[in-house]
């Protein structure tokens, strides 16, 4: 079952990475073999949790030993405007005896306790490696529990050892398609209902975008899964249009929604000024194509014109401050690339980027944009980044939290672009936030001080008192 699912997501025709591969390569699947002793990153369960946990009013129960949840709960900045139940960590905390006798009964009891005590609209049950090894049939337990307790209980079949975080994202998407989307009918629908896929409302980013959509008259029927509610996600099949945000991770959901319910989808981004405008335009155009009132196109253009002029005006003051400042972008995703134009518009120079997760087409595109001399590193080792920063080849590094200390130990400013950050960068206001953050850290007075030699290492450069 799981194996079939894996082959299915590996063959995703909607995935551009996959399309670029030869037939033979595609069969191998998209999880690269991990090198023992030199691997980094989360597992499939981690990825599944990232994709589904933002569904805020559902209970998320992890079936496994303590490591899977005990070490990891309450560590993401995804925000909810209402229910906070998603922040409660539930686990069956499997013990030795559960492994000997099987964990199914305990799992059922756990589901029952949660339903009785918290009464959530649904319970997501996450499979992990150990119960998968001992053969706990969590799909059967979930089915039984759903029937007995009268609530959707959804098995998420993405035990860690099947692959990477990215694969886990995809498997979570499959779970929604199999068990959730299409199970609830909305009370009202409008011709401008959309579904956003792959937006997790980190640091409240969705809330920088939503007011603009409201103003234009576009309704977010469901968001998978940022600031999500179970019933909204279950109604996604009634959207008129789907936007897939983090293209690599959940494109399978967008494509299959098109297949099943005829909902067209497009890949868009909320990061960067031009990408944000493109996204709004595409949204409006595609909704009109599906029969929405033409007026939203004008309203969209109005909003874009106003916001763009506003954002460039707000970025203006940063230009002289950013003049000549060099940025090293170190993030896998293409996501950051949509920010590049905006950063350059604000006067920054991007000196290079990693392209570990980028496709061939992405790399070509970057080459076209930036010229041959622009650095693209496929596999830059931490030691090399450290050296580059130490040798002052960049003024600031922007990356995920994992490489934070490479920059800080080299005494070079660093900015978090990934999920642990506390500032929203999406939409027009987000770009201004980003520039403000860069400016704050670049102009902080500590950089001069921390680079000073210790008194015992330096020759005195001040004259002795009285001399």
């Amino acid at each position: 079952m799981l194996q079939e699912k894996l082959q299915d997501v590996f063959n995703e025709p909607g995935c551009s990475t996959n399309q670029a591969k030869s037939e033979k390569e595609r069969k191998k699947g998209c999880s690269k073999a991990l090198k023992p002793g030199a691997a980094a990153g989360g597992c499939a369960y981690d990825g599944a949790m990232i994709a589904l946990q933002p569904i805020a009013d559902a209970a998320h129960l992890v079936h496994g030993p303590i490591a899977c949840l005990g070490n990891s709960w309450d560590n993401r900045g995804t925000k909810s405007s209402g229910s906070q139940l998603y922040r409660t960590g539930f686990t069956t905390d499997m013990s030795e005896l559960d492994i000997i006798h099987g964990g199914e009964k305990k799992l059922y009891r756990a589901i029952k306790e949660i339903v009785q005590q918290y009464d959530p609209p649904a319970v997501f049950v996450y499979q992990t490696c150990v119960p998968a090894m001992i053969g706990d049939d969590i799909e059967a337990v979930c089915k039984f529990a759903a029937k007995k307790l009268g609530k959707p209980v959804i098995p998420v079949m993405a035990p860690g050892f099947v692959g990477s975080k990215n694969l886990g994202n995809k498997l979570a998407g499959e779970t929604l398609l199999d068990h959730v989307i299409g199970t609830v009918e909305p009370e009202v629908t409008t011709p401008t209902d959309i579904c956003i896929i792959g937006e997790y409302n980190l640091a409240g980013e969705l809330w920088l975008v939503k007011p603009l959509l409201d103003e234009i008259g576009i309704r977010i029927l469901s968001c998978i899964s940022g600031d999500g509610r179970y019933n909204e996600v279950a109604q996604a099949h009634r959207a008129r249009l789907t936007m897939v945000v983090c293209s690599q991770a959940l494109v399978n959901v967008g494509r299959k929604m098109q297949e099943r319910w005829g909902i067209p989808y497009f890949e868009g981004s909320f990061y960067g000024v031009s990408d944000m405008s493109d996204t709004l335009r595409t949204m409006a155009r595609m909704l009109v194509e599906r029969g929405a009132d033409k007026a939203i196109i004008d309203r969209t253009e109005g909003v874009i014109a106003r916001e763009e002029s506003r954002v460039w005006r707000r970025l203006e003051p940063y230009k002289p401050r950013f003049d000549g400042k060099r940025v090293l972008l170190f993030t896998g995703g293409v996501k950051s690339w949509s920010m590049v134009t905006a950063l350059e518009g604000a006067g920054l120079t991007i000196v290079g980027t990693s392209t570990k997760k980028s496709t061939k087409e992405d790399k070509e595109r970057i080459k076209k944009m930036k010229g041959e001399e622009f650095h693209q590193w496929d596999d830059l080792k931490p030691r090399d980044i450290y050296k580059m920063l130490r040798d002052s080849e960049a003024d600031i590094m922007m990356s995920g939290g994992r490489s934070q200390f490479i920059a800080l130990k080299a005494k070079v400013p660093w900015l978090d672009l990934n999920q642990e950050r506390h500032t929203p960068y999406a939409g027009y206001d987000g770009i201004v936030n980003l520039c403000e953050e860069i400016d704050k850290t670049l102009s902080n007075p500590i950089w001069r001080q921390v680079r000073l030699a210790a008194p015992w290492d330096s020759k005195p450069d001040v004259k002795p008192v009285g001399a």
Partner: protein
Amino acid sequence: MGNIQRFPHSAKAASTNPLKMSQPLGAALAFLGVDRCMPLFHGSQGCTAFGLVLLVRHFREAIPLQTTAMDQVSTILGGYENLEQAVRTIHERNAPALIGVATTGVTETKGEDMAGQYSLFRQRNPALSGLKLVFANTPDFSGGFEDGFSAAVTGIVEEVVQPSETTVKGQINVLAGCHLSPGDVEELRDIIESFGLSPIFLPDLSLSMSGRQPDDFTATSLGGVTVEQIAAMGASEATLVIGEHMRVAAAALELKTDVRSLFFDRLTGLEASDRLVRTLSELSGRPVPAKLRRQRETLVDGMLDGHFFYSRKRIAVALEPDLLYAVTSFLADMGAEVIAAVSPTQTAVLEKLKAATVMVGDHSDVETLARDADLIVSNSHGRQGAARIGVPLHRMGLPMFDRLGAGLKVQVGYRGTRELLFEIGNLFLSREMDHDSHGHAHGDGHEHGQHCGSGSCGCSAG
């Protein structure tokens, strides 16, 4: 406290807001206290990623931690090849002095024979004979953080320590349990050295996890006790064993080296600190240095000033067992009432706790038990529950991701006890100040008058 209610096992099937962390994570922390070490989890890569993130958030440091990256096939066929490849890769790339391998739920459920794999590895890789390799059995599905830490330290003792014919005068071993922060270890070193003794800490987190500024990039742990120092522990005069969970390692060390062990169940509190200082004075044959005498005096003074705010305060504490023991005992010393002591795992030290309710449980249990408490003492994960029931939270233990300098907190010895006393005392004090409206007579004129007069609450301005 006559009647202690005990709940040695959780009755719930769903652990809610877990307090427990896994064994391998504890093992990783122990390994990080060894210089030029690379901890390696034998399991799926997610096991490592979660542990890594948790330690990074707590210490705000780069954390070396690797994985054997077990996938479905290797999990079923056996993980030896992954393990060998991982060790060889780490050796080639980072040349560590020690690789500390911790098993996980995945490899333990499969039942990997670690002793056998160790021999096989040595046999097949004679060229790597100089590399120290420590294996710790740390299944995720039994025990917890403290047990993993203990297993790793025991493993290091068994693999690295050498018996010695001779004794180095003044050399003292310290088996430092995981309830000691890097800051605590630093403080202990200070105290021990002030008697002219030279301590070897195993592990020594004060040198590796207290915020280093390396001259060059290092992929392994930077600082910590060196492998050579650990080997030389057999030549010490005595071993100070700090914490109940260090007893197994202490027994292994004594068995191997005949160095006598001196056990300390805690180092927080006046009497506990007195015991340490007396022992050190006896071991060194030196009088207690003036600095420590002054520190004791200020602690006694602090106890006198602070006891008003502690008396009969109702406090719930949820921490790893040995830290739980140290903190609840200290609070009882100060006249507070520990209404609930919640531990993530069942261990012997729970028998000694002074609390109305002693429970193996999670943060949701704390939330239930602490509804009418004056304070909760727990790690940062306690923040959600504490906020829901409106009880202030004093953060201790690990993880502490919403405070700076989490690793440098000091709570041992006279000075550390004093810091803890003031920190918690100030929480009570500020709450009483907040609740009293200024300008009319306080119910308890004496203590309030004294503190308000000092201007600490701002009322002297009016």
